[in-house]
């Protein structure tokens, strides 16, 4: 029986392969060092090769053991592949969610649950940070632990919450929306998911190694990071797994969107969520390799004694920041464009209106993609880089507010002469997002103006801005998306009353926490400090109280989701009376989504247009005439 457990893909084999992988890495390092005549254990704080190498080989062993590679290995070795009987498709019990599964709907749920686990872990760290900052001086944690807390808080929230939770929501919804039976590469999709818990585990494992968690900030600027204790290597490696996951998913989305749309779904008939994920994926595939590269360069400087960022030996310190931000500024849009897509779906559905200026909305996304590659150095106005780079980067930075503004105004135009339903928590979050994100955008324009940036760079003003756009922006859209598609994913309704408690608590908590940060930043409080001048004590206490409200109210959300998933009333296929295809199938959808691929005959948001249809589902053919392509004139010609 034990033997069978070790042969079959699953957790036992994953554990065994993890141990084998780690042991192999350890033996490799020790063996090579012995042959070279070096000390077997190198324990300078930047070294520890006998831990760093197993931190690569162990997780790879885990991925093989859990079963991500079984099919490919058989294929590659010429062995007969297991017939594709879809035995690993769909989930019958909760246990199936803990196995490698190639069904995009199961993977979507796996993604969302895993990322929200990291959201709550990262949120708990934020609570500790605010507890420490409630008073001047150091009370709860010492500066070393504090630096670790805000670094891991940001790494978890960015790399294993905000970026992948959007991939998870889209994983579930997007194939249904375009009338596809699954993603283009289901096995790659499974591998993408399973790399995420690995990335999160590496970030958290850094707490248990000598020197403690990585503490150079999520930006990991060299040379602080190249000289930091062992935990920094776990950050370097965690980013690799999260980044590989992102790139694989983005390729999957691109191929799925380009090749697998239902007949009749032209580019201009795609829902805006699909446009948003197309744009996001274009950013991910081209930008993510830069952060992967730069984290490897830091790791090599640390472990292999290279000198990419060692100025004393010809390295260039500022080049770290250029490469890092060449990814990490587009990453800001990777964390926002999918949210724009969600808000478009939610507002159009709950306002019963076509999206105002649909084509300009789609073009604005593409405009943001192009511009976002040209603005990275606005993070470096005070970094001591070439002075002449600043003004062009300021102009592109301010111009990127234009396509973003187009989106805000078009959502507002969508509300014009609408029938606005405020009963749904999803709609409340979407509308609040418009206001909160506008403020985040305004502070972003101010930060883009060089003279103002010189004053407020690296202060709490920046902390306020990033949380207004990432929490008030991205996370609000994530909540809107989770509430909107919860009935589709679970087949049940959530409790709107608890949803409203969660919404108002989150809104008040967000404003109470992040609005005053603008002021204390301008007044002189730098970011990333455990201790601060006593004049900021009163505001920090108020911020901490608001942050605790914000944290506590997330537990209401958690309770609502868990209890409603189990005991909520049945939702029916289309509780919001939406037009897009995912709502035309049962909730949750059948195992292969569609008995017959739907035919798309019109735009996705034709609310109020008499007789307009978006898609014709199987079994409906008799009652609807064939599509008339009036725009192209094909229907008229015959």
């Amino acid at each position, binding site marked *: 029986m034990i033997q069978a457990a070790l042969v079959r893909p699953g957790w036992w084999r994953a554990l065994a392969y993890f141990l084998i992988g780690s042991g192999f890495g350890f033996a490799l390092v020790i063996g090579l060092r012995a042959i070279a005549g070096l000390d077997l254990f190198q324990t300078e704080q930047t070294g520890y090769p006998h831990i760093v190498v197993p931190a690569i080989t162990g997780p790879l062993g885990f991925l093989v053991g859990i079963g991500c590679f079984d099919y490919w290995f058989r294929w590659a070795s010429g062995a007969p592949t297991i017939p594709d009987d879809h035995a690993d498709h769909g989930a019958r019990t909760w246990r199936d969610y803990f196995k490698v599964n190639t069904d995009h709907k199961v993977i979507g749920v796996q993604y969302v649950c895993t990322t929200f686990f990291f959201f709550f872990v990262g949120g708990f760290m934020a609570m500790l940070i605010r507890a420490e900052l409630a008073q001047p001086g150091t009370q709860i944690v010492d500066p070393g632990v504090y630096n670790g807390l805000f670094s891991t808080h940001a790494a978890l929230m960015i790399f294993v919450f905000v970026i992948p939770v959007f991939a998870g929501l889209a994983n579930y919804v997007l194939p249904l929306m375009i009338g596809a039976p699954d993603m283009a590469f289901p096995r790659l999709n499974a591998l993408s998911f399973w790399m995420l818990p690995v990335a999160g585990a590496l970030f958290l494992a850094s707490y248990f190694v000598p020197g403690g968690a990585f503490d150079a900030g999520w930006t990991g600027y060299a040379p602080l990071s190249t000289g930091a204790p062992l935990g920094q290597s776990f950050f370097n490696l965690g980013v690799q797994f999260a980044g590989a996951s992102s790139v694989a998913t983005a390729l999957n989305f691109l191929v799925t969107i380009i090749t697998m749309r239902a007949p009749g779904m032209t580019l201009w008939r795609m829902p805006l969520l699909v446009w948003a994920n197309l744009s996001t994926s274009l950013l991910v595939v081209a930008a993510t390799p830069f952060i992967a590269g730069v984290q490897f360069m830091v790791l090599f400087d640390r472990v292999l004694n290279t000198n990419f960022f060692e100025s004393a030996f010809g390295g260039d310190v500022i080049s770290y920041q250029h490469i890092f931000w060449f990814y990490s500024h587009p990453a800001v849009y990777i964390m926002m464009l999918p949210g724009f897509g969600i808000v478009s779906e939610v507002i159009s559905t709950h306002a019963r209106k076509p999206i105002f200026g649909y084509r300009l909305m789609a073009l604005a996304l593409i405009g943001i993609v192009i511009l976002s590659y040209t603005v990275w150095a606005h993070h470096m106005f005070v970094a001591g880089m070439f002075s002449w780079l600043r003004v062009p980067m300021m*102009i592109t930075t301010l111009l990127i507010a234009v396509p973003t503004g187009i989106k805000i105004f078009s959502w507002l135009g969508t509300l014009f002469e609408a029938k606005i339903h405020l009963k749904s928590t999803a709609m409340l979050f979407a509308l609040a997002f418009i206001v909160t994100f506008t403020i985040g955008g305004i502070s972003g324009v101010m930060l883009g103006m060089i003279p103002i940036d010189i004053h407020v760079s690296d202060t709490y003003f920046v902390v306020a801005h990033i949380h207004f756009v990432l929490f008030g922006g991205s996370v609000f859209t994530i909540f809107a998306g989770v509430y909107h598609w919860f009935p589709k994913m679970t087949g049940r309704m959530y409790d709107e009353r608890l949803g409203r408690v969660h919404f108002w608590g989150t809104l008040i908590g967000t404003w109470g926490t992040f609005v005053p940060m603008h002021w204390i930043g301008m007044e002189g409080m730098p970011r990333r400090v455990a201790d601060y001048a006593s004049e900021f004590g009163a505001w920090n206490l108020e911020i901490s109280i608001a942050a605790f409200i914000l944290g506590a109210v997330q537990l209401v959300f958690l309770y609502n989701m868990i209890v409603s998933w189990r005991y909520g009333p049945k939702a029916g296929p289309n509780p919001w009376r939406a037009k897009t295809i995912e709502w035309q199938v049962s909730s949750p959808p059948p195992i292969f989504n569609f008995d017959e691929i739907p035919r798309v005959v019109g735009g996705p948001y034709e609310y109020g247009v008499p007789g307009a249809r978006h898609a014709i589902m199987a079994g409906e053919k008799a009652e609807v005439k064939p599509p008339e392509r009036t725009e192209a004139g094909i229907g008229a010609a015959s």
Partner: protein
Amino acid sequence: MQGVPYLRLLGLVVALTVVTSVIMLIPDWNGEQASTAAPKIDQLLDVAIILSSFVFSVVMVMLGYSIHRWRARPGDESDGAPLHGNTRLEIAWTAIPTAIVLILAAYSWIVLDDMEATASNAMPVEVTGQQYAWSFEYPDENIQADELHVVKDRQVAVEMRALDVLHSFWVPEWRVKRDAVPGAPGSGIDDDFVVTPDRAGTFTLVCTELCGLGHATMRAPVVVHETQAEFDRWAAEQEPIPPEQPQPAAASSA
């Protein structure tokens, strides 16, 4: 789109812009001004606040009016009006924000050039950051100190140096900031900036780039003397720059 009181909404936008601007301009956001750059930056901020108040007011009025006017009655399952867009409106909300941000960019550029204009009588100071302390060298006076002393109304030409990791120089009352980069001076590192203090007194230099465990407490006093004579008296009491200093400097610049 009948029955929408456009003129009254426009009036509401103007009124809200005025109210928001006034409320937002009352607080002394950036605190005390103690350099010639400070009032220019603060004025730029004020202009940004007024233009932002306008954009914010447009969004709030459009959102508030829509929710007030077109909220669905309970049980109303009908759809809204099938409006797909309005080309003139879409051109307007592309062109107007473009104009606003280009104005802000041009004004920022003017302020930046103004801030960075150099004076001929500037006093050079070399500021060195290391974990977790600041030190200051005055090449003209051939002295070193662990406090920054300067003279009111005389421009200071600062050159930044770092011995270990990145640090950043910030005196909030002066509104200037610049990172100290290991490897400076060197190709591709613009490590010098100017500032002209115009208020005598004592201020605090704050490190704003995360530099390790002591980052929060890496501070140094900044003293702005009323007169050059007062500064000279202070300078006479300081230690000279030790002679072995040039050697590592020569090695790193080679």
